[in-house]
């Protein structure tokens, strides 16, 4: 049986969410009264109960999230081991390096530098304990700031962060950024 339009919208939001999504935010997004959310969520939870799908929707930490169904854990674990491979990809290593040298730094700042979305990689690095949130940026959005962990230093055989090899700061200056922006300018007739 197809989901209701509201349940589909909630599911879509959960698919892209990285953290559990509070019901209040869902009500806001769907523009429905807060008390309407619970039945919608129930419908969604019901639709993937009893092993109908590979994932389930759960209420957790005051929010909602999608997670793999427990009975499929062996596949997921095998994937985590094979799929992620035993080494970091060049992209992941670059993200880690940026965090190491620029910490504390937000995901958005890393993404701006690398020019791609880094949410998945940051999560992987955080999950493996190489980086950790250390606070929030001042200003609007209050982005989470990340820094490397002791485990990271330990694995690299370092005592202190200062022992990382010095690098010349090659970050493009403001004028280069402006140039990039220029090139990324949308076409005028949009």
């Amino acid at each position, binding site marked *: 049986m197809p989901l209701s339009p509201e349940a589909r919208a909630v599911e879509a939001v959960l*698919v*892209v*969410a*990285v953290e559990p999504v509070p019901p209040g935010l869902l009500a806001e997004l769907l523009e429905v009264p807060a008390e309407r959310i619970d039945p919608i969520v129930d419908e969604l939870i019901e639709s993937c109960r009893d092993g109908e799908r590979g994932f389930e929707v759960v209420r957790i930490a005051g929010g909602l999230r*999608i*997670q*793999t169904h427990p009975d499929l*854990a062996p596949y*997921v*674990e095998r994937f*985590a*081991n094979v799929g*992620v491979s*035993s*080494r*970091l990809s*060049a992209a*992941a*290593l*670059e*993200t*880690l*390096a*940026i965090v*190491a*040298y620029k910490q504390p730094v937000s995901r958005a700042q890393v993404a701006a*530098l*690398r020019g791609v*979305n880094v*949410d*998945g990689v940051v*999560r*992987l690095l955080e*999950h*493996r304990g*190489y980086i950790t949130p250390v606070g929030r940026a001042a200003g609007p959005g209050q982005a989470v700031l990340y820094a490397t962990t002791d485990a*990271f230093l330990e*694995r*690299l*055989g*370092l005592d202190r962060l200062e*022992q*990382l*090899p*010095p*690098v*010349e*700061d*090659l*970050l*493009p200056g403001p004028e*280069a950024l402006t140039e*990039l922006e220029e090139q990324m300018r949308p*076409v*005028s*007739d949009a």
Partner: protein
Amino acid sequence: MSTPPYEGPVDVLLQLVNSHQVDIFDVPLADMVDAFVAEVASWTEVDLQVLSEFLVVAAVLIELKSRRLLPGSGDIEPDEELVGWEERDLLLARLLECQAYAAAADGFALLIEQAARSVPRTAGLDPDLVVHAPDLLEGVTPDLVAAAFMRATADRPAPVVDLYHVTVDAVTVSDAVAELALRLPRSGPATFRQLTGHLTSRIEIIVRFLALLELCKQGRVSLDQGYAFGDLAVEWVADDSDVVSVGIGPTDEYEG
């Protein structure tokens, strides 16, 4: 109505060709210059690159046009006429190709727009899932981290001698001169068609032709054309002893 942004001289040509039944060699140069000047007037900063590119295209057009307008077109050397044809063919091919890629670019924009309506899931592993994965940092040294940082942040490549403008498969006139200087004394009189029959690319034929002109200028070969557009008779007239010392002066390299 909005005018499309100025994207370079080739686009200007394309727009002109597309907009009307404009004879490309009858392009109203004044209109084109007006359009360009209007464009320049809207700039906040002068872009020398665009300015010089425009000058190049304008110069080519003026040359082609003046060649047509000047009286006594009979005075034009037949070989120059040939070169003119080559230019037209190349320009035509290029315009067509540009049109195809412009159409492809429109298609890309559409695909990107459609694809952007779907967002992939990138949440990654469930946070409380226990994964006994091997240490991802195995074999990673501090130096590798530093190198990765340099890689990630080095947007501007270090200044190096940039050779990109050297064309991949350039055929040189000097090569062609050397080859002809070896072949002609042995083969005896030959025609241009015989000398170029085995060549497939237009640029090779043109280069061969320029090499013959070069040799003619140096007095090593005689060229004779019985009638307009007739085949060119080529004969080696220099002493054979010259062959070993083909010291050709500075010759140009042509991009293919």
